[in-house]
Structures are given as structure tokens and as C-alpha cells.
């Protein structure tokens, strides 16, 4: 079967959008309808990345709300930080944040980024993301489900 026939047969993969979550007050009004995200892994096990990739995949389709991942922090409005901050990633995290133009927000994804999780007090660990930079929004879970990530990001863009 050729690709055009396959595309016709499969049709729409994306699930129907769940009801719109309430917008959060911490989000700048400028980011309504369009949010570009630079994603930073500061010491994650990889589980949160899988869930983020799934949230941007065809089933949850975060791009339909105007949310996209970008290649450079200079293009971004939000930093999506996963994992507990390790000593080697402390300075890169600060530099990445400094490269994001205002207004910007920082989102911590997963228990490790929010609280330190099982790595709290470990060797080579600085602490949760909030001990290095200000965090505006936390998405708890180990790892958080794609639905949670989608709902949190939709509360910023209000779509």
C-alpha cells in the first residue's frame, strides 16, 4: 500500500481536545495563543523526556494549541526543565535562562525538577530547579502523564 492510501486510511490520529483548562495568572498575557519552548535536561533519567515527546506527538498534538519546541533559547518564551539540577548543569541552566528574551517563564517538569525527588541530597546534586532559578509553574509526577503536561501548557496559552 502506498503512502497516499495509508494517509487516507489512517486519517486523523489526534485525539479530541479535552476541555480547556483555566488560565493561570502567572502567565504573561503576551503568550496567549503562541508559546515557544526550549527544553533543558539538567539531570533527568529520560522518563520525563519520553512523556514530553509523547505530548508533542500526533495523539496529544500540543502543536494544535500554538505550542512548539524550538532549537534556540533566544527563540523561546518558556524553559521546560526536567530532572534534578546536577553540578555540571547549574551554570548552563543559568546561561540558558539568561538567553531567553523577556517576558519568559520557567516550567519544572517531574518530581525531580520540582522537589529533587529520590535524588535529594545525592552526590553531585545541587537541588531542585527552584534552588537555582525562579520557577513559575510546576508539573509534578514521576513522570507526569502527557495529559498533565498538555493541561499545564494549555493553561499558559489559554487555548
Amino acid at each position: 500500500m502506498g503512502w497516499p492510501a495509508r494517509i487516507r486510511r489512517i486519517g486523523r490520529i489526534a485525539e479530541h481536545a479535552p476541555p480547556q483548562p483555566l488560565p493561570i495568572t502567572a502567565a504573561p498575557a503576551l503568550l496567549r495563543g503562541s508559546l515557544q519552548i526550549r527544553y533543558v535536561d539538567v539531570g533527568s533519567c529520560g522518563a520525563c523526556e519520553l512523556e514530553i515527546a509523547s505530548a508533542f506527538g500526533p495523539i496529544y498534538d500540543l502543536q494544535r494549541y500554538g505550542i512548539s519546541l524550538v532549537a534556540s533559547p533566544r527563540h523561546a518564551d518558556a524553559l521546560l526543565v526536567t530532572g534534578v539540577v546536577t553540578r555540571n548543569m547549574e551554570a548552563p541552566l543559568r546561561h540558558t535562562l539568561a538567553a531567553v528574551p523577556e517576558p519568559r517563564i520557567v516550567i519544572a517538569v517531574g518530581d525531580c525538577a520540582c522537589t529533587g525527588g529520590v535524588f535529594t541530597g545525592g552526590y553531585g546534586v545541587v537541588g531542585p530547579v527552584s534552588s537555582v532559578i525562579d520557577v513559575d509553574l510546576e508539573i509534578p509526577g514521576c513522570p507526569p502523564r502527557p495529559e498533565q503536561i498538555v493541561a499545564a501548557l494549555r493553561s499558559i496559552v489559554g487555548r
Partner: protein
Amino acid sequence: MTVLAMVAPAAQVAGVLLGAPLVAGVMRQVRARLEGRVGAGVAQPWRDLRKHLRKQAMTPSGTTVVFSLAPAVVAGSALLIAAIVPLVTTFSPLDRMADLFAVVGLLLIGTVALALGGLDTGTAFGGMGASRGITIAALAEPTILLSVFALSLPAGSSNLGVIVAATAHDPWTVLSVPGALAFVALLTVIVAETGRLPVDNPSTHLELTMIHEAMELEYAGPRLALMEWASAMRLTVLLALLANLFAPWGIAGAGSGAGGFLLATVLIAAKVAVLALILGGIEVFVAKLRLFRVPELLAGSFVLALLAVTTSSFFASAVG
């Protein structure tokens, strides 16, 4: 020279300014639908631009005026092309400037400004993107020149307005061997020149595979908006020019009234929308070419353009 003809360049510039983000949006939306996604809607590039324009402008330390001016030069050259090429009418006061060589030169000014902006940041990826971008431009610009030159031979002029008017007068001239060859060559170089698949992937996150994106990695806020707007405008202008070179139906001539101008504006918008739909659809089925295969693709399109010129001059001399 009517008042309408004076208004035409302004209408072209306004149309390209407002329509270019929508063209990018249509291509993304088609892609999303064919991939089984819902898509952000055709107006999403406009929402992104509106946001970037109001964000903080950042100048990376160590950059010079070259970095700051590059987006304005890229956007300005694209707008100048939009003003002079025959999109709505073949009978505008700027028409005598719409020479084939001038338009290709203006395109190259934009490409060079973009590359210099990338080089000026002094980052590894900026320099790499600039070197790749210039390599592709050096291979693509002669092909644009040659393929339009093939169309200019029957018309007997290198002025784009005269070429389009001649094709509008006798539409069968493009349905010939040189016309078909020139069309394929021109479409290939437009894809290469505007950084679309299979030459460059506009939605990549891998810096090592980037060409166009690598040069604008350091741009933020309003300058980034200008850069993205400009690249959408270049794509739109080139698609509109392609549409009018090969299918100039409905383009307003010297004797057209207000209705004719309105019809020409609607028609060119429709033609560009159809081309964007087709290009977006094709992009779903192709993968990015390995960088070292890109010169082969562009050399192939150059050969097609050369054949188009040869056959065109053969037919021209046979008829004349």
C-alpha cells in the same frame, strides 16, 4: 499610466506583507493534516510574529551592526522584489526595474545579508549555516537566472513584465519542452533558495543539519520576527513569480479597469495558495537530502535550466 497602475506596487507589497505568514501557515497546516495531527491553524505564524514583535530585543555580546541590520536588509530586499515584479499587473511604473538580473541580484543581497548576520555572531553554528547557505545560493542563483532566461528568449526581453505579458498573450508558449524544463528547474531552486525540504528542514531541532535556521539561532524578539517574516515573504514572492511566469491568466494589463485589478489580485492570491498546498503536500513525502547530495540536486536542476535555454534558443531561431 493610470492611477490604478500606480497603486499596483503598493498593493503587491501590502499583499505580500500580510499574506506571507499565511502562506507559511497553509504549508504547516497541510503537513499537520496529512500527518494525522490537527494543526495550529493557518493564522499561527501571525500569532507567533505578533508575540515576537513585542518581546525583548536582545543583542548578543560581541555582535556588531551587521547582526542588527541583517534582518532589515533581508526583509527590505524581499519587499523591493515584491514591489517590482509583475504580480498583479504587467503595467506598473516600477516595471522597467523588474529586470531578471536585478531581481536575482536582490535575492542574493538578502541571502548574503542573512549569511553575514549568521557569521557576525561568531558561534560555530552561525558560521556553519552561513557557509552552507552561501554554497547553496551559489548553486541556486545561476539556475534561477537560466530558467527564467529560457522563458525570456521567446519574449525577446529580460524584463519580467514583458515576459509575463508575452506569456499572457500567448499561453501556449510555456507548454513546450523549454517551458516544462524551466518549470522543474525553477521549482527546485525555489525550494532550495527558501530552505524547504528536501534541501533544508525548517522544523529541525538538530543544529548539525541546519542551513537556514542555523544562521538565525541567535536572533530574538523583533529581529527574529523580521527574519521569519522575511523568509516567508521570499517564499511567497518566488511562488507568485513562478505562478505568473507559467500561468499568468487574469493578470491586469494596460487597459484593465478596477475590476480587472481586483480580479488579478484575487487570482494571484489563489494561485499562491494552490502552490503552497501542493508544496506542503509534497513535503510530507520527502525526507531531507544528505548535505553532500544537495549539490547533485542543484546541479541537476542547473542542467535542466541549461537544456531549457538551449532548446528555447533552438525553437526561437527555428521560428525566427
